[in-house]
């Protein structure tokens, strides 16, 4: 692993740790798939007590987040591996839109 790559991981990991669950979902959805999986696997290792758990189901491109408030959110990814929508009990489905360069433009709440 290059120092540059580790620095990317480090910055994103701390940003994810220091955000709310909603901010984190947007942050991870904006991140390229390989880096995102790296961050998710680090966050998953912390899954004890009040820390969020990330369950990875690679086959279905689905990540389930079990949050501090015992809410369950699920992410459905599109074919490019980006987060396309998030389903949670409190605010329904959050859909992510991407521009032609595959960058997140807006999450919209229906």
């Amino acid at each position, binding site marked *: 692993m290059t120092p540059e790559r*580790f620095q990317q991981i480090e910055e994103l*990991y701390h940003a994810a740790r220091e955000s709310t669950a909603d901010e984190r979902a947007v942050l991870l959805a904006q991140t390229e798939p390989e880096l995102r999986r790296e961050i998710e696997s680090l966050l998953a*290792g*912390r899954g004890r007590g009040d820390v969020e758990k990330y369950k990875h189901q690679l086959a279905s491109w689905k990540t389930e987040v079990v949050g501090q408030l015992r809410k369950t959110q699920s992410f459905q990814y599109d074919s490019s591996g980006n987060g396309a929508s998030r389903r949670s009990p409190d605010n329904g489905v959050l859909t992510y839109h991407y521009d032609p360069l595959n960058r997140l433009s807006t999450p919209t709440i229906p």
Partner: protein
Amino acid sequence: MSIGASSAEITGLLKSWNSGDPAALDRLAERVYPELRLMARRHMKNERQANTLQTTALVHEVYLRLVDVTKVEWRERAQFFAMAAQMMRRILVDAARARGAHKRGGSAPQVNLDEIAQLSSAPDRSILALDEALTAFSQIAPRQAKVVELRYFGGLTEEEIVAALKISPRTVRRDWDLAKAWLLRELSHRIERST
């Protein structure tokens, strides 16, 4: 050489190292390492003891024995503990190997990084697994790996790590958080591979 002279000499070396003389560290280590190893062995050999002594206790004991504490500033004390933490790691790894502990095979090694390493007479595969994971991690993240070494093997407090590594308290907390997540992930991969 009397204890007094030795203590004055060691205190002097600690001060020289702290004010930027790298050669002083080597000479200091030559005096501290055998003492720490002897004390650790003595404890680990004694089967009648409860065998749950934390490495922190030993680090403090060797500090009190070898250093003239009235002449040392708290930053220098933190530097001493940092050096001793590195030594404790080596002593524990060597002892685990000598007792015939092996890294792989059998049930999963349990490492609780939130506790401080303990001196035990039992073979300990988790020490070897952690040592290996920490060495690999130090190749890509030397500062973060150092934070783990100081905290886990030497029992340094956050303030002592701040002083020893000259980084901010926030950096210490973030480094520890990331390092722990990283190492637990690496160790759980190791378990998957070995089973």
